């Protein structure tokens, strides 16, 4: 009997010891957040072999991604962006890569996400970057977790109000002087003033040597020819010195950062005829000339449109062997313009080869320049609708102006727009 009583006691002791051992082994694992992050209840372990009886495609869980942003910040000031990555049960995910980005615009047709930085989550599931925002306004900020085999990707967005309008980037120059360019201005003025003084002395010497210039000689005996010869040279010298000196001083004082004069931006831009490019203008202003008025009379393609295209179409109208027309767009025939030229399509394909990122220009959309006409899925010409025809829009565009550098005249643009509006016929 005793043996019978002992046997269950021994089993209980054995079970208890195994349980204690298991608990002891499990204790550090529970303390380890990495281990704790394992979504044991939510998804099978990636290291475990897939069970044939399990569901073939079970959707991985979505983690909680929270973004902590300051409500506002100053322009160019350092701002701290924090993202918190947790499981659905609130356990931190450690060592995961978080990408922070901001919505940015280069122009009306080129917008996208601009990566601000990346960071890995720590033991609390927090990823932090310090960056600066250099665009004023309500800036959309986001954080993205790309996902892995256990969790689906997650993205969270917010906004930061960025205030300020001060110039942040000022060119650094080795020629910076303690008081701007005024020292240089004074130095040059002194040098050229000395030149002018010397020239004046030369004038005096020359005049002293002229017969008739002394008080004892009457004015009537002055040899005027010799006097003018001796007078003209020094005066000419003085005028040259005066002209060069005053001109050089003006250049130093007014030219945009010429000769080290870099701190007078607000001063000289008022007199500059070169138009400055404020930050707020790019991407926010219309970039196209207005659509011209459509002509009432019929416009001939052969007689009026094609000569313009052949003369000013450049490589689009004169393709060569080694330099195919840009983005496969040809303008040298009616068929090519309307998209019926097989040769144009062949060359177009040559421009859609995958690039280093494995994507093609067609899939990228804009492809870096003009909205790329027919080559990128846009219709070069939509009969009856010049406002939808890339050919017309490119002629009106400022950012992607075609022909480049020297635009078509208003009359030529009006002709082409009218031809499209009248049905783009091969007449």
């Amino acid at each position, binding site marked *: 009997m005793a043996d019978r009583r002992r046997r269950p006691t021994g089993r209980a002791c054995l079970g208890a010891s195994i349980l204690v051992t298991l608990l002891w082994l499990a204790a550090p694992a529970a303390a380890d957040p990495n281990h704790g992050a394992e979504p044991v209840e939510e998804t099978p372990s990636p290291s475990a072999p897939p069970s044939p009886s399990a569901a073939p495609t079970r959707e991985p869980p979505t983690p909680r991604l929270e973004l902590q942003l300051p409500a506002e910040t100053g322009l160019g000031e350092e701002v701290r962006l924090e993202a918190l990555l947790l499981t659905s049960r609130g356990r931190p995910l450690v060592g995961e890569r978080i990408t922070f980005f901001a919505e940015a615009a280069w122009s009306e047709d080129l917008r996208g996400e601009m990566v601000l930085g990346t960071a890995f989550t720590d033991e609390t599931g927090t990823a932090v970057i310090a960056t600066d925002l250099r665009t004023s306004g309500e800036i959309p900020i986001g954080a993205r977790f790309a996902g892995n085999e256990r969790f689906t990707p997650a993205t969270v967005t917010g906004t930061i109000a960025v205030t300020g309008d001060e110039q942040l980037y000022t060119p650094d120059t080795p020629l910076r002087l303690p008081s701007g360019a005024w020292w240089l201005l004074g130095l040059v003025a002194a040098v050229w003033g000395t030149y002018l003084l010397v020239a004046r002395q030369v004038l005096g010497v020359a005049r002293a040597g002229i017969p008739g210039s002394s008080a004892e000689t009457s004015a009537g005996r002055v040899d005027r020819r010799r006097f003018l010869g001796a007078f003209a040279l020094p005066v000419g010298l003085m005028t040259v010195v005066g002209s060069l000196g005053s001109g050089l001083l003006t250049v130093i004082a007014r030219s945009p950062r010429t000769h080290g004069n870099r701190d007078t931006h607000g001063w000289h831009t008022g007199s500059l005829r070169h138009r400055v490019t404020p930050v707020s203008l790019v991407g926010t202003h219309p970039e196209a000339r207005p659509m011209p008025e459509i002509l009432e009379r019929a416009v001939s393609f052969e007689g009026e449109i094609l000569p313009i295209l*052949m003369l000013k179409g450049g490589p689009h109208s004169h393709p060569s062997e080694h330099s195919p027309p840009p983005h496969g767009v040809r303008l040298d025939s009616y068929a090519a313009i309307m998209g019926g030229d097989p040769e144009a399509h062949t060359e177009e394909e040559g421009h859609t080869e995958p690039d280093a990122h494995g994507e093609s220009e067609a899939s990228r959309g804009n492809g870096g320049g003009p909205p790329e006409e027919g080559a990128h899925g846009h219709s070069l010409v939509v009969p009856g609708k010049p406002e939808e025809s890339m050919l017309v829009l490119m002629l009106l565009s400022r950012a992607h102006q075609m022909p480049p550098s020297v635009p078509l005249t208003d009359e030529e643009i009006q002709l082409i727009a009218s031809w499209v509006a009248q049905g783009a016929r091969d007449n």
Partner: protein
Amino acid sequence: MVDLRDHLDRTGGATLDQRELTRRRFLNRIVGGAALGTLAGAGLGVWGGTAVADEDHDAGADEMGHGSEEGPTSTRVRRWAMVVDLRRCDGCVENGTPPQCTQFCNWGRFVPEGQQWMEVVEQPHDDPPGAPPHTMPLPCFQCENAPCVNVCPVGATFHTPEGTVLIDQERCIGCRLCIAACPYDRRFFNWDEPVQPDWVQDSPYDVRTQTPAMRGTVMKCDFCTDRLEAGGLPFCANGCPWGALYFGDLEEDIATNGREIVKLSELIHEQGAFRYKEELGTEPRVWFIPGSGETVPRTHHREFMKDRLEWPWEEWSTEPAGPTAPGPAADGHAEVGSGSEHG
């Protein structure tokens, strides 16, 4: 006792004589002063003005809302910069074309024959043996401390507030001091009458596009600021098939190659970008990400075709209109270095 009459006669005569001399001197000084003032004023007028864009351009700017009526909503000004990702540049060898950045630049700016404002240079090497050559696009570096600007005796080359270096060909006297001063050899001189399409030569002068080109003046890459400020990209970036050329703004710390938008400082620092000949203190605005076209899939092993670049202005001007223009083909190209070129 002094005779008063004699005294009056002496003093009166002397006074009269001095008065005559003074009047003569006075007239001489008037004439000299007027001449001096005229020439000095001319110097102020000629030297004092800065580059002048043509009236049509200003009128066009007003149409776009860039004029003074609407006014900018910000006082901040762009600071243009460029980043060349050499990892993506193979000199267009893979595509079997001449360097398209150069070719697009030539087309877009009607670059006079022989000049390459955006020039791709190659450096063959044997590490490892048989490896394709290094290629490196070289635009104007738009130096912040530009030697060309500092040496120009007439102020014809100047910095814009955005940081690009432009040349006012209407003021350039062709002394070529700037060519000698440029440590990057990025300036070109029009020795002969530049060949351009007639309608370009007949267009009003625009300092930003450097059209029309003028004989006896210097030209160079201008960063296509007219396109940048309208939200576009320079022609070289448009032409690059691999997106290797980024243009950006140091003020907003943003850059793009037309396919993606990146934070300029991140791109420069994360990729270890460098500036060419930075030790000279020129503070160039162009950065290079080290590389040798390793991200370009090199499968065709073609030749570097820089010698097939084209300046087909005469063909474009003279070729009659027709629906089936064959194109100038390979023999239509001009040899590099002919005509106007480096000073």
